[in-house]
């Protein structure tokens, strides 16, 4: 049963090559609550929620804890909605990629149209609830981030250019702005810098991952950088973007928008990031730049980049409380 339904869900880039009604009714009954939760990409949501929470904590002013909790919930639900819509649109490439073939849509446990409806309903609800609980500015930025992720990254850039993750990375950089706006009703330099840091952090983080997952993208025809430009070029891009990222992370401290805890954290974690990126660049490789160490340095850098962002954003929050 699963095999039949799996073949029925492979459309082309969200274009409905098949009707969702082609999915046997029985298959729809096979979804679990966990499948619907999986549509929301909960692991991605965690980091998004964290940076949004830091934007909220670092903002001057006071927001009632109930409303603050609601704001964070809205950011989480909106991020999840983006994940669901992304899974609906990318169901054809998810079906051919090993990493994603067992997701609820390609596995045939949830019909594409139901996933789309679920995602759109959550997206609309999150924006309306944000407006109700906080203000129009936060709701507007939240709506913009959803639109950017769905239309600009997923539908426009992802399948067209190896720079997809550079521009598309902006979608994941909005949460600090949203958290800040939820408290203040506007934005200022610090949340803009937080946005810039996440924006610049995304390419080396994602390209490190793509160095060892590129076979999947190649099979699916997605022009990720290692597929389009090769591993050697990707290593240089990782190193170059890291060199651009680290000074940027020091700007909030240099402008006295954050305190010494942040400054020291950004300095130490930044230096460590550069060393990791250098090791990716100097990894033992063949003439095409393909790793002879099973991309061990890239795997380390990918994991470290998660700690890097978490630590420096936690430091933003600490400085906001200490200062």
């Amino acid at each position, binding site marked *: 049963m699963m095999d039949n339904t799996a073949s029925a869900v492979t459309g082309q880039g969200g274009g409905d090559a098949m009707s969702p009604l082609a999915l046997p009714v029985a298959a729809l009954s096979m*979804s679990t*609550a966990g499948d619907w939760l999986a549509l929301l990409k909960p692991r991605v949501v965690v980091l998004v929620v964290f940076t949004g929470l830091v934007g909220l904590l670092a903002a001057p002013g006071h927001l009632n804890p*109930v*409303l603050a909790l609601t704001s964070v919930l809205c950011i989480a639900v909106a991020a999840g909605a983006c994940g669901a819509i992304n899974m609906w649109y990318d169901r054809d490439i998810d079906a051919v990629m090993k990493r994603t073939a067992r997701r609820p849509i390609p596995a045939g446990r949830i019909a594409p149209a139901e996933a789309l409806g679920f995602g759109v309903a959550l997206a609309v609800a999150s924006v309306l609830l944000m407006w109700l609980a906080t203000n129009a500015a936060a709701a507007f930025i939240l709506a913009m981030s959803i639109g950017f992720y769905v239309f600009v990254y997923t539908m426009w850039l992802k399948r067209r250019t190896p720079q997809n993750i550079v521009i598309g990375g902006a979608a994941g950089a909005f949460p600090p702005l949203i958290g800040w706006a939820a408290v203040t009703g506007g934005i200022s330099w610090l949340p803009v810098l937080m946005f810039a840091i996440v924006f610049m952090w995304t390419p080396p983080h994602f390209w490190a991952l793509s160095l060892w997952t590129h076979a999947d993208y190649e099979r699916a025809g997605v022009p990720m950088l290692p597929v389009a430009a090769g591993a050697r070029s990707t290593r240089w891009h990782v190193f170059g973007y890291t060199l651009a990222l680290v000074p940027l992370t020091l700007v909030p401290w240099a402008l006295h928008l954050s305190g010494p805890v942040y400054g020291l954290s950004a300095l130490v974690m930044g230096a460590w990031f550069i060393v990791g990126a250098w090791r990716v660049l100097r990894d033992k490789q063949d003439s095409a730049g393909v790793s002879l160490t099973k991309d061990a340095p890239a795997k380390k850098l990918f994991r470290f980049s998660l700690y890097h962002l978490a630590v420096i954003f936690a430091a933003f929050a600490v400085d906001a409380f200490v200062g």
Partner: protein
Amino acid sequence: MPGSREEAELVAKRRRGRNLAMLAVLLGLAALFYAIAMVKMATPGFQP
């Protein structure tokens, strides 16, 4: 396989799980909207 007793039981079990999850979400939303309403009503300058 289709229509077998095992499959019917599995479908019923999964439906029950989805229903319970939906119940939890609805109860959570009711509590959240109640709390938001209380906070908004307690805000100085609130006008119904």
